[in-house]
């Protein structure tokens, strides 16, 4: 039993590690051009947790894949923007240099740990692989380090477990092994793409605690991609909300929950069944997200928005600066934030 105390700090003065700047990406398919990212910008500083919140198809995972350079190209094409790591544009680098950064600078863990692990190698071998390749360790040294890493992510009996195969691990332990693997080369930025979505709540809580603990200890930048408003509220310093390939709102976590500045964020919060509340009818967001093959003119959320006016279906709202690091891409953002 413990009291969870995740610091919710302002990290804007610490070192800027990673910056996505006005990123545009599309998939050219036989059905047409899907405009998946339409000018996405966010950044993460050392020791900071950025949560990227959005529903399926909002582009939150594709942004992460673009950062890692693992989007299939073709059909994917980056049509604009930069991804800067320590000021260096990743999109202009050679493959070799990119690999280096992917190994030592930025690391990623995925939702489904079972399909991210190779079933025919032992967990220890897979964790040690990068150490052998990058650090020139011998098999023995790599194994030893793998045991330490498994120990660090609190897998009991790490010495025995290191020789086991992924199928011998439970879901929670597989995700721990993935975390151990992603931390093997001490990355500065860790991207966690829905790390706990496939897990039960009690295990989810363990994994989030672990991630947070490691982050604070190493002062890593953490990008947490999720659709779960609860998880975000417990760990994020700042939040970027995505809809149809755009960031519609950006704010410090406490601010965003206190007073959402975009109708989509507001609607998301209202439609979530909460543990501490009961009631007959949930507020819903009518309709569906737009098809990315054919995003309507104006604000992409307008067809589902209860506040939509004539201007919303004609003019695409710019991302407005609302002060205190807040932005919102809504024509009526000021009204929303200043409402009582």
């Amino acid at each position, binding site marked *: *039993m413990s009291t*969870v105390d995740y610091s919710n700090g302002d990290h804007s003065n610490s070192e800027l590690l990673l910056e996505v700047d006005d990123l545009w990406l599309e998939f050219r398919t036989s059905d047409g051009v899907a405009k998946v990212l339409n000018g996405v910008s966010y950044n993460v500083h050392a020791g900071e947790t950025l949560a990227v919140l959005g529903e399926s198809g909002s582009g939150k995972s594709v942004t992460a894949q673009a950062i890692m350079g693992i989007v299939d190209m073709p059909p994917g094409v980056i049509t604009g923007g930069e991804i800067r790591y320590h000021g260096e544009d990743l999109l202009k680098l050679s493959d070799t240099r990119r690999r280096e950064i992917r190994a030592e600078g930025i690391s990623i863990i995925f939702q489904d740990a079972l399909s991210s692990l190779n079933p025919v190698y032992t967990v220890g071998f897979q964790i040690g692989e990068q150490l052998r390749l990058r650090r020139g360790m011998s098999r023995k040294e790599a194994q030893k380090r793998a045991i330490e890493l498994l120990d660090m992510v609190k897998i009991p009996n790490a010495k025995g477990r290191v020789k086991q195969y992924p199928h011998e691990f439970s879901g929670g332990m597989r995700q721990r092994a993935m975390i151990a693997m992603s931390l093997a080369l001490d990355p500065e930025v860790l991207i966690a793409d829905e790390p706990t979505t496939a897990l039960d*709540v*009690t295990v989810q809580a363990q994994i989030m605690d672990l991630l947070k603990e490691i982050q604070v200890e190493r002062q890593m930048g953490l990008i947490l991609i999720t659709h779960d*408003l609860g998880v975000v*509220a417990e760990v994020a310093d700042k939040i970027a909300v995505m809809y149809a390939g755009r960031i519609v709102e950006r704010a410090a976590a406490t601010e965003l929950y206190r007073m959402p500045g975009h109708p989509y964020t507001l609607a998301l919060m209202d439609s979530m*069944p909460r543990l501490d509340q*009961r*009631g007959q009818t*949930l507020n819903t967001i009518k309709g569906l997200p737009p098809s990315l093959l054919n995003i309507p003119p104006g604000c992409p959320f307008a067809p589902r928005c209860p506040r939509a006016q004539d201007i919303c279906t004609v003019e695409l709202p710019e991302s407005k600066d609302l002060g205190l690091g807040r932005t919102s891409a809504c024509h009526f953002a000021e009204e929303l934030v200043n409402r009582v």
Partner: protein
Amino acid sequence: MSEAIQSDATPGGGESIIEVRDLVKHFPVQVGILFKRTVGHVKAVDGVSFDLKRGETLGVVGESGCGKSTLAQVLMRLVPQTSGSATFEGRDIFKMRGSELRKLRRSIQIVLQDPYTSLNPRMTVGDIVGEPFEIHPEVAPKASRRQKVQDLLDVVGLNPEHINRYPHQFSGGQRQRIGIARALALRPQVIICDEPVSALDVSIQAQVMNLLGDLQDEFGLSYMFIAHDLGVVRHLSDRVAVMYLGKVVEIGTETEIYEHPTHPYTQALLSAVPVPDPSLRGQRQVIRLEGDVPSPVDPPSGCRFRTRCWKAQDLCAEEQPELISRLGGHDSACHFAEERQVVP
């Protein structure tokens, strides 16, 4: 925070439609290719008793592997039970044969979790929703079926003109609606919902939950609502059963379980759910369970939760706690039941 609108009252004053007593389902674990040898049993459901009352929603929560889906499959007679009994309107479900069994199958329907795999991609929506009428032709004469299917689509909020479309032309939420229309076709009295919204996005999930609530009012349905999301379960349920390793550890009304939980596992489960309010960070006492759920092949002696329980004492290893009323309130299977408020 808006106050509760829903009343606690169970319509009909509590006449049971399904009664389950000491239900057990063990799956044999076998080795060998030609000569199979049973080396143990997965004790998926191990002595579960509860009542489902007419018109109510009974939520069943628990982590993966606790036996909640197996329980549903046994009640649907999709897999045979190992022992124990279950009655539907007073008649033994497991003894039914022939026409009586067909009638049971009409009365209890199921909505499955994954709307992508539970619909046949090569059948049109009309065929999917109308298939129950092929199997139970007495429900609707052939000539009226198309109209009936269109009515059903309308009831679940789909466009009746989409009757000739295929599942891939619909979104996840719409597909789940198709699954619900299919379950409604035979006018069942009970619908077992096995994780019906867990594959959906938050905004779509709310639409489907509201639909389930509306349909219950309209058709007087009883739901057994299986889910792992405690927020979803609280929203829809009148009563809640909490399962751990094949057993019900606590059962009570929605208020009793969420506001006055007495079993340590229920408390831990509720405590693990993140609260969407950053201002409460650091102020909340949380209970963190260690390790994983033990294997159902070889569950711990005595109380099954004792290996992860912070209250465990020698008694817990020796004696299995009964699921009985403790502290004068609802049923809880803990020797040291004690109320503790965990939901803020």
